[in-house]
């Protein structure tokens, strides 16, 4: 009950602060432009347009969804403490884990709403302009939206953990930006560099799998680019899809762990905090 009340308040605030509007517009705008501009090189004839859209949208998601998630979440605990609103809230009959879980549900709803609406618009526009969409592709698209929300959940949870640990908002924002750069950009480049240098001599397939699973964005990338045969052809990942032993359920579990473990740690850190 308390959890739902807090979630409802967070959603209400996000609507009032125009967070929902901003996130939805951003995702919808980019999704639409990718859908129409992104298909220019392949053309529209005989190509499974939606599969191409999935490839480009999931690449967009990897950059954007973690960023939005961290922007919403880094402030959740330390920001409310600095503004003094947490003091009053915690004097009410609510447990701290309820506050955290309520915020999580609220923020995740905002993110899920923006993703579904933004990306849904892209599909709608594609269908309206006569693009061919078959069931397989649609299924892959729905899976893409679902996993995007899960990726968002992981980064919301990571943002909370940072927010629960640091002393002021500035530090939380700094760490979040650093973490975003690391997980979204640097990690893959470093991994590629290491693999290229190693030439397959020391790094086993198991080690590579472990390295891919230890970054939520890579788990997300693999789900969407290798999970569906048609899509992986366009993504140029067909080779990797055949060689990796990471199945979609394993990848989903990895993403789920990336959500639950930081969330649990955030609850623990928050419950020990004094304010």
């Amino acid at each position, binding site marked *: 009950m308390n959890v739902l009340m807090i979630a409802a308040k967070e959603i209400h605030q996000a609507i009032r602060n125009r967070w929902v509007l901003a996130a939805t517009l951003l995702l919808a705008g980019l999704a639409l432009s990718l859908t129409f501009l992104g298909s220019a090189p392949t053309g529209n004839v005989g190509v499974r347009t939606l599969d191409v859209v999935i490839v480009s949208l999931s690449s967009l998601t990897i950059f954007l969804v973690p960023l939005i998630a961290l922007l919403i979440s880094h402030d959740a605990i330390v920001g409310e403490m600095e503004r003094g609103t947490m003091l009053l809230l915690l*004097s009410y009959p609510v447990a701290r884990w309820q506050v955290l879980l309520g915020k999580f549900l609220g923020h995740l709803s905002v993110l899920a709403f923006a993703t579904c609406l933004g990306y849904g618009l892209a599909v709608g526009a594609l269908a309206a302009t006569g693009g061919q969409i078959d069931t397989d592709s649609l299924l892959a698209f729905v899976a893409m939206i679902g996993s995007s929300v899960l990726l968002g959940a992981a980064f919301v949870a990571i943002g909370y953990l940072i927010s629960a640990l640091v002393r002021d908002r500035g530090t939380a924002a700094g760490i979040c930006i650093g973490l975003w750069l690391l997980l979204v950009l640097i990690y893959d480049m470093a991994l590629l560099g290491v693999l290229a240098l190693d030439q397959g001599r020391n790094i086993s397939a198991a080690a590579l799998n472990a390295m891919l699973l230890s970054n939520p964005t890579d788990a997300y990338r693999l789900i969407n680019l290798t999970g569906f045969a048609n899509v992986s052809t366009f993504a140029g990942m067909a080779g990797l899809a055949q060689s990796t032993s990471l199945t979609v359920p394993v990848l989903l579990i990895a993403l789920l762990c990336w959500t639950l473990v930081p969330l649990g740690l955030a609850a623990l850190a928050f419950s020990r905090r004094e*304010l």
Partner: protein
Amino acid sequence: MTKTVRICDVTKDYGSVKAVRGASFELGEGELVALIGHNGAGKTTLMKLMLGLIRPSSGSIEVLGDNPAAGEFAGRRQLGYLPENVSFEAALTARETQAFYARLKREPVAKALDLLDAVGLGSASRRRIGTYSKGMRQRLGLAQALIGRPRVLLLDEPTTGLDPELRQTFYDVIARLASEGATVLLSSHALTELEERAGRVIIMNRGVKVADGSIEELRRLARLPTRIRLKVSGLAPHEMPAWAPADAICRRLNGHFVEIDAAPERKIELLHRATALGNSVEDVDVIPPTLDELYAHFLRQSEQPS
């Protein structure tokens, strides 16, 4: 009298700073208690300890049957708190905020919204809190603290930013709640306001409780002189009247008044002496030591190594 709050030998340190040192007291139903002390004396820390926002370094606390340090919060449904510098989500309106807090306490929302009118927010309650002045936020702070029928009210500097009229209403409201059995603990710097209202005063200095009792008890303990101020005619500006006691401090004020510092037990005797024998006394004021003076006295006393 049922005890609602128990503080037992509580110490709280932040690193090397001891915010509260070995404080013990109990608060009972129907008590209106003033917690006074300068900034950093440990008033806010004590309230936060009672709410479980921070945990004591040693000692135990019980509030409405809960141990707040262990995260128990069932009793908080019957507890109202107004923090110093209260703040709210700027994007929401007062009505939305008040409704949210009422739901958290499982209290009827409509009654909670009526409180907004009672504190004089009126039509402003439909505006976003971001547009509010400090006084309006303070009013909302009071309204949320009064949701339901709180059995314990912890008010940290409740009257700062309130205009005199609302101050009066505020004291009426908490006096009524106390008479209905609520425990009210309020910290304030406005000692003159508290003097007539608080049934009990707790004085803190540097984290240590230095005095605790009703104002009369504190006056007795402090043994501060009562000032007797007499309007005397027919005296030269610096002349002392003949009946002035030699063993009490007397002084002249602005040409017309004679002021005598009377020890508590000599008060009546000195009054008799001054008004007897057809002295030229035209008016008498008896001024007992104020809370300000008592406060200063107990602080001085606690600073002296005994």
